[in-house]
C-alpha cells in the first residue's frame, strides 16, 4: 500500500507557475505589476496602502478602520445611497478594507466601463464625505461587531495573545479599536486618519485582466489624481514580550479555544522561506501535518489544529490555534509541548522534506486562479518586498533546500520552553 504513495510522488514533476508579469510605470511615476489576460472582458485591480491600523494613536484606536468603512458611504456629490446605486449601475464591485498593517482596495469592473469606474473610485478615495449620519450608522455597526467579538472565544484568545505578546505597541491592541475609542471618534478624527493613511507613498498596485500596460498606466494616473504624497509615519518594530506560561480567560461553553506560540521570524529574514517550509510540515492548514496527525487523526481531540508564522510589516510571532473539549485541554497542551520538543531536537525527516517540497511546488501555481486573486498577489508581493521574478524562481528556491538547512532553522524557531498559552473556556484541571 505504501508503494502507491512512493510511486505517485515520482510522477509529480515540478510545475512552473509561468506567470508573465509586466512591470508598469505610469506617466506620473506610479508602479504596478500587471498580468494581462484578454479572454474575459474585465479587469481586477488591487491597491495596498501601507500603514493600516498601526497609524492610529492609542486614544483614537479604530479611526483608520472606521474611516475605511466610510469610504463607500458617500463621496463628492453622492451620499451613501447614491454612491452604492452608481456602483450597481456600473456593475462593479469595490471593496475597502483596513487591516492591522495596511488598507486594501479591490476593484473589479467590465472593460467597457473602465474609465467611469476609475472616476467613481477616485471620488471615494479623494473626496469621502464623512457625513454625520453615515458616521453614526457605521460606528453603530462597528460597536455592535466589537460587542460580538467580546463574546467570541476565538477573538478573545487572539486579543489576549497579542496583548501579552506586544504590550503597548500598536500590535498589542485591537485594530478596530474598543467600544470606547470608537465612540469617541468624530469627523475631524476621520479626516485626519484619511489624510494620514491614503497617500502615494507606500502604495502597491497589482492588476490582472483585459487591459494593456499603457492603458493601465493612464487609468492609474487618473485614479491617483489628487492623492497626496506622504502621510503618517509607521510605528517602530514590535518586540515579542510574552514569556512562557499560561493565561486563562474563563468562558462558558463545552469547549476551550487554545492560542499558543512564541517569538517568530521576520519576513525579510533570509531564513523566512525555510521557516515557512518547516511550518508547513508541522502545522500548515492541511490534513497531513504533524499537529493534525497527532491531535486529530490519532486521538480525535479536535476538529482542526494549525500553526502559522504571523510575520507582519512591523513585528512577528509564531502561533497556533485549536478548539477542544474542556476536559482535553491539559492533554493537548502536553502533546503540543512534546511535538514542539521533537521539532527542536530532531527537526523533520528527509521523507517529510521531500514530500513538502513536492506539495509546495505543485500547489504554488494553483494560487493564480482568476483575475482577482492574481491582482491581489501582484500587489501583495510588492508590498512584501519580493522581486518581480520571484514567482518564477520560488519553486527552485524550495527545491534547493537541504535537510541540514531546514533543521538548522527548525532548531532555532522551535523552543518548547518558551511556549505561551492563552485558554478561553473552562479547562479542566488548570487554573
Amino acid at each position, binding site marked *: 500500500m505504501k508503494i502507491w504513495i512512493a510511486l505517485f510522488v515520482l510522477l509529480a514533476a515540478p510545475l512552473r507557475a509561468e506567470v508573465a508579469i509586466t512591470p508598469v510605470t505610469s506617466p506620473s511615476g506610479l508602479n504596478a505589476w500587471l498580468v494581462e489576460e484578454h*479572454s474575459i472582458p474585465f479587469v481586477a485591480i488591487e491597491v495596498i496602502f501601507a500603514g493600516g491600523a498601526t497609524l492610529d494613536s492609542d486614544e483614537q484606536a479604530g479611526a483608520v478602520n472606521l474611516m475605511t468603512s466610510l469610504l463607500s458611504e458617500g463621496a463628492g456629490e453622492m451620499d451613501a445611497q447614491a454612491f452604492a446605486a452608481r456602483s450597481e449601475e456600473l456593475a462593479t464591485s469595490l471593496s475597502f478594507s483596513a487591516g492591522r498593517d495596511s488598507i486594501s482596495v479591490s476593484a473589479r469592473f467590465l472593460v467597457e466601463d473602465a474609465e467611469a469606474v476609475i472616476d467613481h473610485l477616485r471620488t471615494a478615495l479623494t473626496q469621502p464625505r464623512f457625513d454625520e449620519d453615515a458616521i453614526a450608522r457605521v460606528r453603530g455597526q462597528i460597536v455592535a461587531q466589537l460587542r460580538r467579538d467580546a463574546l467570541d472565544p476565538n477573538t478573545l484568545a487572539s486579543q489576549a495573545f497579542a496583548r501579552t505578546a506586544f504590550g503597548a505597541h500598536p500590535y498589542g491592541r485591537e485594530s478596530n479599536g474598543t467600544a470606547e475609542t470608537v465612540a469617541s471618534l468624530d469627523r475631524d478624527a476621520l479626516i485626519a486618519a484619511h489624510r494620514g493613511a491614503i497617500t502615494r507613498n507606500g502604495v502597491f498596485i497589482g492588476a490582472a485582466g483585459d487591459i494593456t500596460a499603457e492603458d493601465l498606466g493612464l487609468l492609474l494616473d487618473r485614479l491617483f489624481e489628487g492623492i497626496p504624497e506622504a502621510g503618517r509615519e509607521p510605528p517602530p518594530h514590535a518586540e515579542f514580550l510574552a514569556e512562557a506560561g499560561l493565561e486563562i480567560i474563563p468562558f462558558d461553553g*463545552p469547549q476551550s479555544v487554545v492560542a499558543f506560540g512564541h517569538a517568530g521570524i521576520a519576513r525579510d529574514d533570509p531564513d523566512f522561506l525555510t521557516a515557512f517550509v518547516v511550518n508547513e510540515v508541522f502545522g500548515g492548514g*492541511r490534513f497531513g501535518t504533524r499537529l493534525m496527525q497527532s491531535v486529530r487523526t490519532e486521538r*480525535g481531540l479536535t476538529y482542526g489544529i494549525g500553526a502559522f508564522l504571523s510575520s507582519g510589516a512591523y513585528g512577528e510571532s509564531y502561533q497556533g490555534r485549536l478548539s477542544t473539549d474542556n476536559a482535553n485541554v491539559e492533554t493537548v497542551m502536553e502533546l503540543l509541548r512534546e511535538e514542539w520538543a521533537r521539532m527542536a531536537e530532531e527537526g523533520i525527516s528527509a521523507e517529510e522534506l521531500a*514530500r513538502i517540497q513536492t*506539495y509546495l511546488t505543485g*500547489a504554488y501555481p494553483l494560487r493564480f486562479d482568476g483575475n482577482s486573486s492574481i491582482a491581489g498577489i501582484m500587489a501583495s508581493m510588492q508590498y512584501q518586498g519580493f522581486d518581480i521574478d520571484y514567482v518564477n524562481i520560488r519553486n527552485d528556491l524550495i527545491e534547493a533546500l537541504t535537510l541540514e538547512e531546514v533543521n538548522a532553522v527548525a532548531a532555532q524557531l522551535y523552543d518548547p520552553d518558551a511556549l505561551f498559552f492563552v485558554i478561553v473556556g473552562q479547562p479542566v484541571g488548570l487554573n
Partner: protein
Amino acid sequence: MFARPIAFAALIVVSLLRPAHAEPVTHIQLENGLDVVVIEDRRAPVVVHMVWYRVGAADEPPLQSGIAHFLEHLMFKGTETMAPGAFSEVVEANGGRDNAFTSWDYTGYFQRVASDRLALMMEMEADRMQNLAFTDAEWLPERDVILEERGQVLESRVGGQFNETMMAALFKAHPYGIPIIGWRHEMEDLTGEMAMDFYRQHYGPNNAILIVAGDVDTAEALELARTHYGAIPPNPNIAPIARPSEPPHLAERRLVFEDPRVGTPYVSRMYLVPSRASGDPAEAAALQMLAALLGGSSTTSVLERRLNFEEGIALSAWAGYNSMMRDYGMFSVGIAPVDGVTLEEAEAAMDRVIAEFLQEGVDLEQFERVRRQIRASEIYALDDAQGRARQFGVGLSIGLSVEDVEGWIDTLEAVTPEDVIAAGARLLDRRASVTGYLTQPQSAELSQ
C-alpha cells in the same frame, strides 16, 4: 490493481454554447449511469475534479442523523488497496488540495490539482466509489472528530444553534429539519457498520455526477472518465429518493432563543417556499429577484434603505432565498435592531416595510440595476472554474438538468416587476413560516 476498463458509448451528448465568451460545457451519461460534465477553461494549468453523490443528510435512516456526514469523513480512511489517509497524502504529494462536503441533498468530494494529475485523481476517486474499507481503528477516533466538529462549528456559535432550532421548527415532517451534522445524542451512537451500510445503499456510478473543470480537452477528459469510471458496475441497491413531505402548514411558529453569548440580538424569519427543483423555475426566479431587491445590497436594497438608512432602527436587515434544494426552498428575512429598539418593534417595522413594498411595487431603477448586475455576473463567473463546477454539481444533484443550470440567467432576465410582486404576495405566507428571536436571557448576567 484495477480491472481493465471498458469504454462505454455515451448515451447522451449535449454541447451548449453560452454567450460569446463562454467556454463549452459538455454533458454525457456513461452506460453505468454516471453523469459526466466537462467545463473547459484553458487559462491556467489547473483542473478541478469533483464527484457528487445524490445522497445527503435528508436520506438518513431513523436514529442515525449525521451518518451521511460521518461517511464523508470515513471516505478518506482507505480502500481495499489504499491505506487510511493515503488519498489525501497522494493529493498533497502532488501539490493538490482535496476536501469534501455534505449537505441535505448531496455529498461531494473534490480535488484541485495540476492538470496533468487528472488521471490519478480519477483512478483514486473511482476506487473509493466501490472499494471503501476501514477498521475500528479508523472510525472510532473519527466519531470523536465529528463530535468535536459539532462542538466547534455549531455549539460554540450561538447563531448556529439558533439556526438549527429554526430549521427544526420550520420543517414538521421533512428531514431538512434535522441538522446535517446530526443531533449530538444520535452521533454518539453512530458506528462504522452503519456508515458502511449507508455507503452500500447509496454510493455508485448510477447515483453520482462527475465534474471536470479547467485545463482539459473535452474529448480527452471524457475518454479518461470512461477509462476510470466506465467499468464500475451500477449499484443495484440504489432506489428512487423517498422522503416524507410536509403536511399543510396551518399555523405560524414562533420561538425565543436566549443565550448569554448573544452579542447582537436579532429577529429571523424563514418561509417555506418552492425551490428551483421542486417548483416552477420562473417562480423561483421571481423569488430570487425578490431577495435581491429586498436584501441584495447592504445599502440600496429595500430593507436596508428603509430600516437602516431612512428610519435608523436597524443595524442591518437582510433577505435571502435558498433555492438550490431538491424538495423545498427557504426564503429568509431578518433584522438586527439598533440599541433601544426592541425585537418586537423591529419585527413589526420589517413586516411593515415588506407589506408596503408588495403594495407599492418595484422601483424600476433599482430593478434595472439588479438586472445589469446579473448580466455582469455572467461574465465575472467565467473567471471562476471551480465556482462553475460547483453550480453544475449542486444543480444536477438536486434534480436540475444542465440546460436548467445554463439557462438560469435567461430565466432571471425574463422576470418582470409584476412577477416579483405576485410571487412575494403568494409565497410569503406567515402560516408556512417560523419567526425566531435571538436574545440575551431576560434577567441575565453576562458570564463574560
